[in-house]
């Protein structure tokens, strides 16, 4: 048998890890836990740093998370229903036509409203970072090989979806460099046309090429595909996946545990696979 790559986890591992943490986040519904999970995801990616292009995409995910946070906070401050609590400051209210009953623009911003917005923004950040971490740590090409080949369309869609972000991160650098050659520095929103469109077009083109290549090599057409270098789910993966599962059990069974302690435990549970 060809040598099995022992350095990395099974291609599905990080996605299972992300799903487990997703459940934790939804069950716990606590800002402190969202925060500790986000922190854990960033630490984990830094810990497993590699020079691969799918890793490079994490930088863009950080920006996306920051953007999501800012947007959610801004919406929380500007739009919303009246909420009780101490009034922190007041922004001028804009009266909307009767069509938008119950929606308010501006008005009094209370502590309650601000903290709700903050909770939801943190949850959003945690979700983005967890899936970005899974994306940054697993190799999209390897994923293709472990998905059942009979479901051609599913495999293809998954691979294209999971490789678009990392490949685009790479294209952005290249297209940006090329844009300077056309005498245009690209910054801000104006750069969308100059950099965004070519990058999107390129990722579309690459996806079509990849699909054509898979198709012309018989992917998904023959009943019993075989494996050259099988990916084996070893004890190592089970061990590493055990830590977020324990995290989930803590959250489910020990609601009485103090928030800070639980957050610390979860931080450890998120990072542990990085050391296995």
């Amino acid at each position: 048998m060809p040598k099995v790559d022992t350095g990395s986890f099974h291609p599905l591992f990080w996605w299972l890890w992300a799903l487990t943490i997703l459940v934790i986040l939804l069950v716990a519904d606590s800002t402190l836990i969202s925060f500790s999970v986000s922190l854990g995801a960033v630490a984990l990616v830094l810990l497993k740093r590699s020079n691969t292009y799918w890793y490079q995409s994490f930088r863009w995910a950080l920006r996306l998370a920051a953007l999501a946070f800012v947007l959610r906070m801004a919406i929380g401050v500007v739009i919303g229903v009246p909420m009780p609590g101490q009034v922190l400051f007041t922004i001028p209210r804009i009266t909307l036509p009767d069509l938008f009953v119950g929606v308010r623009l501006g008005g009094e911003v209370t502590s309650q409203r601000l903290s709700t917005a903050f909770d939801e923004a943190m949850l959003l950040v945690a979700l983005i970072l967890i899936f970005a971490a899974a994306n940054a740590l697993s190799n999209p090409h390897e994923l293709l090989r472990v998905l059942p080949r009979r479901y051609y369309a599913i495999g293809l869609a998954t691979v294209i979806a999971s490789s678009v972000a990392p490949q685009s991160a790479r294209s952005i650098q290249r297209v940006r460099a090329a844009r300077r050659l056309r005498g245009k520095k690209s910054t801000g929103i104006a750069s969308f046309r100059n950099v965004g469109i070519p990058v999107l077009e390129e990722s579309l083109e690459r996806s079509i090429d990849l699909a054509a290549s898979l198709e012309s090599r018989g992917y998904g057409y023959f009943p019993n595909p075989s494996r050259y270098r099988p990916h084996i789910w070893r004890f190592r993966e089970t061990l590493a996946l055990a830590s977020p599962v324990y995290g989930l059990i803590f959250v489910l069974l020990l609601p009485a545990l103090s928030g800070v302690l639980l957050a610390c435990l979860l931080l450890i549970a998120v990072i542990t696979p990085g050391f296995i």
Partner: protein
Amino acid sequence: MITFSNVSLIYPNAQRTIVEDITFTVNEGELLLLIGHTGAGKSSLLKLINGLIPHHTGGILTGEISVDGRSTRALRPGELADVVGIVGQNPINGFVSDVVEDEIAFGLESLGIAPEIMRKRVEEVLDLLALAPLRRRNISELSGGEQQRVAIAAALVTNPKVLLLDEPTSALDPIAAEEVLSILHRLVHDLGLTVILAEHRLERVIGFVDRIILIHGDGSMDLGPARQILNDSSIAPPLVELARKLKLGDIPLSIREFRKNAPQIKESEVEPVRKAKGAAILKIDSVSASYDEGRKVHALDGVSLEINGGEIVALMGRNGAGKTTLLRCAVGTAPLIKGEVRVKERDPEALTDKELIEFVGYIPQDAGDLLYGQSIEDECDLADSDNGVESGATLSIYQELMKIPGLNSHPRDISEGQRLGLALSIILAAQPSLVILDEPTRGLDYEAKKVLIKNLKSIASDTNRAVFISTHDVELVAEVADRVIFLSDGQVIADGSRQEVLKASPAFAPQVSKALPNNTWLCLSDVERFLNAKN
């Protein structure tokens, strides 16, 4: 093996048919060459054979195509995977794994070949394409030539009966191209493989092929023995053109054939064209640089060179020798480790964007990176305003350069060669002092190449401007270059006139020089000058 009967193909909303009512048969074990102008539909014809058109790309197909008795209309490309292997123009986009070995095994996995047999087949193909030392390497770190070999290996591993290749040697250096072609030749002769090859650089392949398909671009095509097609084709390699110029009766297909009945030409002294040289435009002083930010590997290792105004300098060397990195130094995008780069006494990294386009025009290997318009026309207008030139300037250069314009097409939909022509027009319109081209003849036909050569020569006739080209195309170098710099493993190993460098090694010798070894000529225009002087 392959039969086309009354096949027509048209894309919805397209103005012209790609092929119209074509009928032909390809026999088993034939090596067929597909030629035609840039954008004439060579890639489309290849994709018709394995069913990617119309199953994957759409398009309206009439008539019947069958491969090994199976109809491509009834079967999807995946169901033909055991009969037809295809290698696309950009193999990098089609790779489905990261490791060489896994990529090659992929096709076998899909077909469900037993692991023991799979292992053996992979080993065989690794050996056949000399990839064994690279088996555990990451594909994205390989050079263009190595990637091309991996793509061919991945298509060959399933033992298909038909192999389709879209410009397999255009990204390769002459030696790597020779290797790939001789492998194909061997496969055809030993295994009876049927190979169809689309290629622009006929000089490399013409000696190997049995028959030629010439696609005219208006839907019609000719199929015949190589000699017959080339006899009256406007697409012809330098050797054929040389024979025409010297009025030899029969068209030679190889250097050997030419020499057999070549006239002995006494070369009289023809005044070499003296060119005025201007001040230094590009100065590179003991530069070491890496491929990427943060990588420790040196792509360049203490390179020093100078390019003066009025010069056309060609940069040659094997795939992965550091040519692109050297070119990138001149626009300040390569990560320098030490040394100094000066463009007209200025540091390119410190130039403002506006100054940069006045100083340097650079076309990267993937010319599409430069483009962001929504149609060719739109792109030309954008370029006019970016470059601050009068409107219409870019478009007129483009129309001169390209045979089949199709101005409403999206820049992503046109062929590789057309994209290059478009990027070239944009750069030429800005009139920079230094024009840098990375592999400018990929996908260009002979006529477009002639226009390119004319344009480059007119740039260099100005002593304040210079051209720096990296290329594998020895014929281009023979025609345009004043000086040739040879790079190997990040170091300059030769720097001299084209005479000295090209004549020194047989692998890099152009056809004219091989055909007439006793003369000093390197290219057709040298011969032309002599013939004109004689008359």
